[in-house]
């Protein structure tokens, strides 16, 4: 904060810093704001000033088999991949947080390595490996691949949540006669649920935005939404792309708000407990 006794130079610097930070925030948010109005353009150019407002591009993508099919494919692959990643990732996180064995750090690093391995390498490796098994060009292959990419996000969020989890609650449940399974579902799960949901949202967003591995693995009929956008941007970038982009922006805003709500809720729970 600016102190009352600040020198003129400090004052200048204080305001300059705010202006600079404001410009950086503009840089971050402008691309997202700029494309939304263009999706309502009555003209077929992605340029300002707009000719007029219309919903024709939304009608076009809703009426188009290609885009409907892409949305359908995304809605098949992403939820399935998320479910797989969340179940496997949550179980492993519980095991990782509670146990201590030599090589645990290495194992954790390996389990979250899909996050850092360049996606093209993942795509090529999976394509060459899945093709002889008949899994290339199948929904199964795509779901498995997207689950792999989502797992690291589940592990990092769920282990972070579990580290703040009080295990005396589990001991209390056990001392009151609950068996481990019951304890898990009635005590552990409700408390770590926000972390699991956050991890799931991350995994879903990863899969819903995944294009590189899909480029290698999906058959032409299995193009997901981002895959179709990739083709659209490459061939002919039209306001239809802007319309899809707007829908995706609305979706990501919803996910972000859900996440923010979960974070505040768990923060409130935690501070409530310590009181």
């Amino acid at each position, binding site marked *: 904060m600016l102190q009352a006794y600040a020198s003129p130079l400090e004052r200048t610097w204080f305001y300059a810093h705010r202006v600079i930070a404001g410009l950086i925030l503009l840089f971050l948010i402008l691309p997202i704001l700029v494309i939304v109005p263009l999706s309502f353009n009555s003209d077929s150019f992605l340029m300002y000033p707009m000719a007029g407002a219309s919903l024709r591009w939304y009608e076009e993508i809703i009426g188009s088999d290609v885009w409907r099919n892409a949305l359908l494919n995304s809605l098949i692959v992403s939820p399935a991949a998320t479910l797989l990643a969340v179940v496997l990732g949550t179980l492993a996180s519980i095991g990782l947080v509670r146990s201590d064995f030599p090589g645990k750090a290495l194992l954790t690093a390996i389990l979250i390595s899909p996050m850092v391995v360049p*996606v093209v390498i993942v795509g090529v490796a999976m394509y060459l490996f899945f093709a002889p098994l008949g899994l290339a060009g199948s929904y199964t292959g795509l779901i498995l691949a997207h689950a792999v990419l989502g797992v690291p996000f589940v592990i990092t969020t769920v282990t972070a949540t579990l580290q703040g989890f009080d295990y005396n609650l589990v001991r209390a449940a056990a001392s009151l006669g609950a068996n481990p399974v019951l304890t898990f579902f009635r005590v552990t799960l409700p408390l770590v649920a926000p972390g699991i949901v956050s991890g799931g949202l991350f995994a879903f967003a990863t899969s819903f935005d995944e294009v590189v591995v899909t480029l290698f693995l999906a058959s032409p009929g299995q193009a997901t939404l981002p895959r179709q956008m990739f083709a659209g941007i490459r061939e002919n970038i039209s306001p239809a792309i802007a319309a899809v982009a707007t829908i995706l922006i609305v979706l990501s805003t919803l996910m972000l708000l859900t996440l923010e709500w979960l974070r505040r809720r768990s923060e409130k729970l935690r501070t409530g407990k310590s009181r």
Partner: protein
Amino acid sequence: MTATTLTASDAAAAPDERTLPLKTRLQRAERRKKLLHLALIAPLAVFLLLTFLWPIGALLKRSVDNPEVVGGLPATAAALAHWNGQGLPPASALAVFVKEMEGARGSTELASAAKRLNTEMTGYRSLIMKTARSLPLPDGSNLQEGLAAIDPRWGETRTWQVMARAGQPYTSYYLLAALDHAVDADGAIVAATEDQAIYLDVLGRTFWMSLVVTLCCLVLGFPLAYLLTSLPTRSSNLLMILVLLPFWTSILVRVASWIVLLQSGGLVNQALQALGLIDEPLQLVFNRLGVYIAMTHILLPFMILPLYSVMKGISPIYLRAAQSLGCPPFQSFWKVYFPQTLPGVFAGSLLVFILSMGYYITPALLGGPQEQMASYFIAFYTNETINWGMAAALSTVLLGATLLLYVVYSRYAGQGRNAAKAR
């Protein structure tokens, strides 16, 4: 599991848990718990092993695999393995070769073996095809002379040396090629010829572009993260949403937006023209600049978040103490505050650098041929020219560099976390 842990006195007793000493019972309970935890990790470990680690291992192995000649001319490859590489191969090996060529004529295996040989020595493909067409040799003729009559190159030691080398089950050819080197006819490692030496350039470009993007992210991310830490929680949370919204928005949406913004009639050019800074629209996209702008935009949150979390843990007391002791504000920032942010600077920079090294989509959509990074060539060799050995070798180099940095990153991230805890 039971018998080995019992003490001698317990061995005779019934294995009733309650009669065992407390220590043994605790040990057993501990071990059961350990096994349970391992059992929880096991499904994911097996899943990743089968769908991730194994495929990547198989891909890396392809960078040293050499299946073409072994597959197309197996007996010849085996026969040449015993040849000492001097003069010409013995007549027995030549006989195997001639017989195998006759049998393999027109097969796809022979064609791929010929293609592979051609990569080692230009003209080898036509030599193989021509020889296959001209066989069989007239009855009773000398094999060596007969082959030399089809093409004099069969009389040269080098031709056979190349085949012997290409006939080995493993090769360093692709990995060396990925580093712009090759094995010459004498078996020495030499720099590749100029028209083939493109990969070090590609790798250098990948490194350079990642470095520029990392620096841009640091320059933009540091002041913003600093502002976010110095603001009251309510407003910093609000501004944080502006950082996180792009983070959550699809990369393709952002790429499309940048095309719209940066195109010659786009808002940026319009604004620059309205301000009178330029007369003609600038070429801002489909070149290096466009790739830098979009990649910086996409990766900036990955820099801001670690910086923010480290800065959040720095107590403002140090800065105040420095100033109260008479240190001027800028110097106290530089000497007292900045060094404490270094764990965040390193963690964020390494993360951004690691991620940008693997970028494919953004350069592919926003760049020209000169902007394509290593990933593009891996995809190119897999999809377009079906040269899996080369794709695998480039993957090995890129993955090696990435994992090396990842190890460094885990160290730093761990240290940062410990430092935060210690505070």
